């Protein structure tokens, strides 16, 4: 459970699972050769396809580059432009609202259903799979097409919302209703965090609930004092993962808005705008600057999550 966060913590504490032994130096050299030989694919990939390109894009972010003419050094111009670009501001707003509103709703829904299933009286496996299915297909183009059809003018969502007294019209063409549509698409995929919550709930000792009941704790009290603290590592993991995923929505935004990010930039998610500036306008320098800002923001969010986690995430059996 939560193996990624554990590994990061392990690294923070300078611990490793296996203590290195200290054999003779010839054996050591052989181990070095073997180690680097086996690691070769990853090392090549890391330097050629990850670290190298990252440095290249850092350089490009200070240039103007259209793929055809040599990059031209412009200093901080790209970053300055970012802060005065209204479309960039829109893309940041859209992505932030999506993450800040969508992620908590999605996690609350997934925790609620996980608790329902944890008390399952039969057919747990079936329900778990049924709820997980949308997570598997939700980011695909097929589902984006279904969403387009459902939220279209005169589509089934229009029919249903008119049926309950809502305003007529499709959600796709209405800048005020595109965000709820995307949040619904995200919440629909609550299955993946739910499965992770379920695994976490299984680890909570039943004695804790029994003891609390004997002491007269009601369901709400048991939820607040037992479930939430015991689940905090899983909540932390899901929160981190879902937030980072929320910053990377692309296919559904592209398909639903036909690649435009409209209407009125209301679906101009960060990565869609990055794609348009880079690969439609061929402004590789500007897009690189956007990409680096995204890395810095994701890095900062991860850092803040890990730092604040010490005050609200409880690892059972922790000796600190």
């Amino acid at each position, binding site marked *: 459970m939560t193996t990624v966060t554990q590994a990061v913590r392990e690294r923070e504490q300078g611990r490793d699972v296996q203590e290195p032994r200290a054999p003779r130096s010839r054996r050591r050299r052989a181990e070095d050769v073997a180690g680097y030989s086996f690691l070769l694919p990853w090392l090549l990939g890391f330097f050629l396809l990850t670290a190298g390109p990252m440095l290249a894009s850092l350089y490009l972010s200070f240039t103007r580059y259209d793929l055809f003419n040599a990059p031209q050094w412009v200093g901080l111009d790209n970053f300055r432009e970012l802060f005065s670009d209204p479309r960039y501001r829109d893309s940041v707003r859209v992505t932030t609202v999506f993450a800040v509103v969508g992620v908590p709703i999605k996690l609350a829904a997934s925790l609620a259903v996980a608790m329902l299933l944890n008390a399952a009286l039969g057919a747990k496996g079936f329900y778990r799979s049924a709820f997980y299915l949308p997570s*598997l*297909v939700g980011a695909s183009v097929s589902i984006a097409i279904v969403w387009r059809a459902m939220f279209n003018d005169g589509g089934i969502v229009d029919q249903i919302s008119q049926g309950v007294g809502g305003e007529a019209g499709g959600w796709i063409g209405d800048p005020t209703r595109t965000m709820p549509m995307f949040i619904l698409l995200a919440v629909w995929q609550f299955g993946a965090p739910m499965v992770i919550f379920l695994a976490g709930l299984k680890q909570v000792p039943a004695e804790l609930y029994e003891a609390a009941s004997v002491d007269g704790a009601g369901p709400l009290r048991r939820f607040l004092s037992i479930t939430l603290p015991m689940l905090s590592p899983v909540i932390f993991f899901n929160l981190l993962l879902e937030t980072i995923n929320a910053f990377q929505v692309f296919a559904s935004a592209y398909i639903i808005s036909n690649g435009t990010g409209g209407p009125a930039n209301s679906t101009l998610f960060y990565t869609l705008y990055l794609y348009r500036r880079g690969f439609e306008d061929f402004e590789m320098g500007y897009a690189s600057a956007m990409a680096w800002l*995204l890395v810095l923001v994701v890095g900062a969010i991860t850092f803040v999550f890990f730092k604040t986690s010490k005050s609200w995430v409880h690892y059972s059996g922790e000796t600190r």
Partner: protein
Amino acid sequence: MTRTTAEPGTRTVDESARTPEQHATARRSARRSRDRRHKLVFHLVTGALVVVVLYPAVWMLVSSFRPSAQIIGNVSIVPTEVTLDNFVAAFNGIGGVSFWTFFMNSTILAVGSVVGIALSSAVSAYALARIDFRGRRVWFGLMIATLLLPVHVIIIPQYIVFNNLGLVNTYWPLLIGKFLATEAFFVFLMVQFMRNLPRELDEAARIDGAGHLRIFGSIMLPLMKPALVTSSIFAFIWSWNDFLGPLLYLKDPNLYSLPIALRLYVDQTTGAANFGPQMATAVLALVPVLIFFIIFQRYIVEGVATQGLKG
């Protein structure tokens, strides 16, 4: 909980006086009927939720069998007029390219991804989990760091490099990374898995004079089957659903994978007349993923539960 200790001999024929055993039976049947009520409520609530959650998927499936004009705004999922025309149109493909071309392209990319990821991740993970070489901890730390890296920071320079090498419009840019273990999730998953295998196994093999190649090939690989299966399933599904990669690198419709072929459908067919074939193609594009899900459900759900792998 009380246990009835009545012996068979104490059983009385008199109906007016109930033995402790009969009391227990009465209590048990009361509890059973309460349990049955709880069970009913649980299944009603959860079942209703399943209906809501799966509704869009079922609606999509039903719509693909409807005449185009009856799709939009048709809330019902009871088919009134079933037609196979949409699927006939879907199999004809789009822009002169047949559906099966897209399907084969997607298959080549997915199978290539599975092979590349399984091989390169297993080999790299063996180094990080089982060989004590200098710098191992640093590399492991860097590998973890790339787990959370947004891909968007590397697509631009990668594109520039592949463009300069003349590899745009080939499958190289989409597959080379898979053979170089750039999907850190899989390396990480396998490192974790190998660390849980007993170390005595390779130590014994070492004493027998086996090198790392032998230990990896004949001891580790066979034992790693569950991790390899999980990785392969996710590698397949991720590649199958991938949109951004093919969108960037594939320009010739004959090379298109299904997701970007579907985009073509959306671009070219704005009239409602084409919603049917569009739905049918969307359904067909999901069929392999659904088959994988049905067969490997346990691996997929366990993979998510234990490794936090996203679907």
